[in-house]
């Protein structure tokens, strides 16, 4: 048996140096080494198969085709529309792929029997959770890198500044990261991959589309009826003579021959509505796509050329729409121009109708200036991506907390319908 002894001590020799360090307690916090290792394990083992590469190839070709077509069909002028299109595509692709991957990550591994051996190792629950979320998220970063030629090409004519590009791309990647974490949380909660993937996309849908629906429905709650009174001449009570005289006067424009006593007036009341969107604009601001738009640079509709910008593009116009919702209806607009036929014909309005051309032009100019001022105000309204960023941060941290708790061993409870290994 002495030979056995030497083999045994030999065997001990080489591993003794590789014996892992001792540990105490039951740590859960992620470490740089652990997260890095877990990420690299995930990236290696989730390397796409041949079919996967074909799928990604087709997806890339589609996106590239959209970008090229858009570039071909727009004028050579400075325009940010194409750049913004590429950004939207990056967001869309990221939101589709990364949460799908993360949403099968934990229950899939558990079903395959490769999760528990990792939980047995020195990797903590935090290492596994963050490694997995980063690995899935990196796929969308790779998509961004794959699309970077289009991004750079369209950026050159977009009039955006580099810092603004970095900020918006950062916002996009953070959005994707948050929803990747949500997918991972679902995969730690649901036993089956089908359930977790659909729940992950449902969550994304709630934030992307649900907020818009909620905004539309919420609009009904903050809409109030405003009564308005119009007055007009009661044609039914007119004598044929008076009627003829009125028609005559309308054609000639000379109302002085009419006698007010011949023309009885009637009141007519009708309702119109004012929607105070400023009260529900926060729902809109929770939308991650709105948040991304809100990080885009402000383009002044008047001075863009002087500012070295492209003409207001998709993001700038959407920012105006969002600002419109945030500011709500214009105060002055609430008191509408009341139509009063009788007053126009016989009262103070009769004089107004005889406005000189200069006066009318001045009136139009004033109207136009008011509209332009409103547009200026909308376009330059300070951007507000903060509500959505806050919600995304809460989603991310909440999801990661759930995942870490679900990955910690020893388990107190198991997902129903699952085994440990």
């Amino acid at each position, binding site marked *: 048996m002495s030979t056995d002894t030497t083999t045994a001590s030999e065997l001990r020799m080489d591993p003794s140096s590789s014996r892992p360090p001792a*540990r105490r307690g039951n740590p859960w916090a992620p470490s740089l080494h652990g997260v890095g290792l877990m990420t690299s394990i995930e990236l290696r083992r989730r390397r796409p198969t041949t079919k996967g590469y074909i799928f990604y190839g087709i997806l890339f070709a589609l996106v590239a085709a959209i970008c090229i077509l858009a570039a071909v069909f727009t004028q050579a002028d400075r325009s940010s529309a194409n750049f913004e299109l590429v950004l939207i595509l990056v967001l869309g692709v990221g939101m589709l792929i990364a949460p799908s991957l993360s949403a099968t990550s934990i229950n899939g591994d558990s079903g395959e*029997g490769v999760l528990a051996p990792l939980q*047995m190792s020195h990797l903590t629950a935090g290492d596994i959770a963050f490694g997995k979320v980063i690995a899935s998220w990196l796929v969308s970063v790779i998509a961004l890198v794959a699309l970077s030629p289009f991004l750079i090409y369209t950026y050159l004519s977009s009039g955006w500044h580099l810092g603004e590009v970095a900020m918006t791309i950062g916002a996009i990647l953070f959005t994707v990261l948050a929803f990747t974490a949500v997918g991972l949380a679902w995969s730690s909660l649901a036993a089956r991959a089908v359930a977790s993937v659909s729940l992950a996309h449902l969550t994304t849908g709630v934030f992307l589309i649900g907020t818009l629906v909620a905004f539309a429905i919420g609009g009904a709650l903050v809409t109030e009826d405003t009564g308005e009174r119009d007055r007009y001449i009661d044609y039914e009570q007119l004598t044929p003579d008076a009627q003829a005289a009125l028609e005559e006067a309308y054609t000639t424009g000379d109302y002085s021959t009419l006698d007010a006593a011949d023309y009885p007036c009637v009141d007519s009341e009708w309702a119109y509505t004012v929607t105070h969107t400023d009260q529900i604009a926060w729902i809109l601001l929770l939308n991650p796509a709105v948040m991304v738009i809100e990080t885009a640079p402000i383009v002044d509709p008047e001075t863009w050329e002087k500012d070295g910008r492209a003409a207001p593009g998709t993001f700038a116009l959407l920012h105006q729409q969002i600002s419109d919702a945030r500011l709500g209806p214009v105060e002055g607009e609430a008191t509408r121009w009341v139509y009063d036929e009788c007053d126009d014909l016989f009262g103070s309005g009769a004089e107004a109708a005889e406005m000189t051309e200069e006066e009318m032009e001045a009136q139009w100019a004033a109207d136009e200036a008011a509209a332009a001022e409103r547009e200026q105000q909308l376009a330059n309204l300070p951007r507000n991506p903060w509500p959505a960023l806050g919600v995304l941060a809460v989603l991310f941290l909440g999801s990661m907390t759930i995942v870490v708790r679900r990955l910690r061993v020893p388990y107190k409870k198991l997902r129903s319908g699952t085994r440990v290994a």
Partner: protein
Amino acid sequence: MTTTIEAEAPPYAAIAVQGVARSFGDVRAVDNATLTVPAGSVTALIGPNGCGKTTLMLMLAGLLRPDEGTISVAGHDPRTDAAAVRAAIGWMPDQLGSWDNLTCLQTLTLMGQAYRVNKADARARGEHLLGRVHLEEFAHRPARVLSRGQKQRLSLARALVHDPQVLLLDEPANGLDPRSRIELRDLVRELAGEGRAVLISSHVLAELDEMVDGAVFMSKGRTMGDEAAAMVAEARTKYRVDALDRDALIAALRSSSVPLEETDTGVILRIDGDDNAADALAWIVGKGVRVHRFGPVGSALEQTYMAMNEERR
């Protein structure tokens, strides 16, 4: 000689389990389990399907929290030092899982790194272990090409990457060909010889007989302590004696009033120890009986298992 003494670790209970219980909802998977596994020995965990073996192993591995009872693995309590318990354990799960598009060597290297072994050491260790489980030729091939038995061996190698003091092997012989089974048996003995404590569960009882130092029987979530041990000890004393002339054999034994059990071809005797067996054989042959078969009756574990199953009916 000093090296031999050095290699012999003082036998202490590497695994000590006292009154452990665990339920899943209404199902009491493990009701009351008590066992000890000394360092440097192999203990079998035997029981019918669904008797709680895997659940017990998961609790020992520090993956599942027991509802009641105390566990100590390599001197650590999984309730307070779960990480230390997990680090001390090499666990080979009953469910085979492998990273299909990583090679065997990559798998072991990454696993080693997951135990905080540096990459070069982990890789060297991986190469060494692949040799030990006879998978060298698959070192650079993806795990998906492995057969079931080969995956089983990779799983065993994976359980050894961090040189654990305690090994929990859940059905390691499943799907192995006869040659691999014998190799597994030798490997397990070797691992115990290195001072590790091994707890092994299997249904192939004949295989375990030659491998284990002790056995723990489980039934309906309970470990059968002394009662089962007594049955095993009793089963081990049974010797089968077959003679060309069965009646002459029985007559010779009866004349000296030796207690015996008759079988179709001879008798079963109870003999304690090898010395006594040699004496008994000499005595029978001395009586002029032509004995053509003399040896222990089959597998002691199997007999005990079957006897217990009968009791349950």
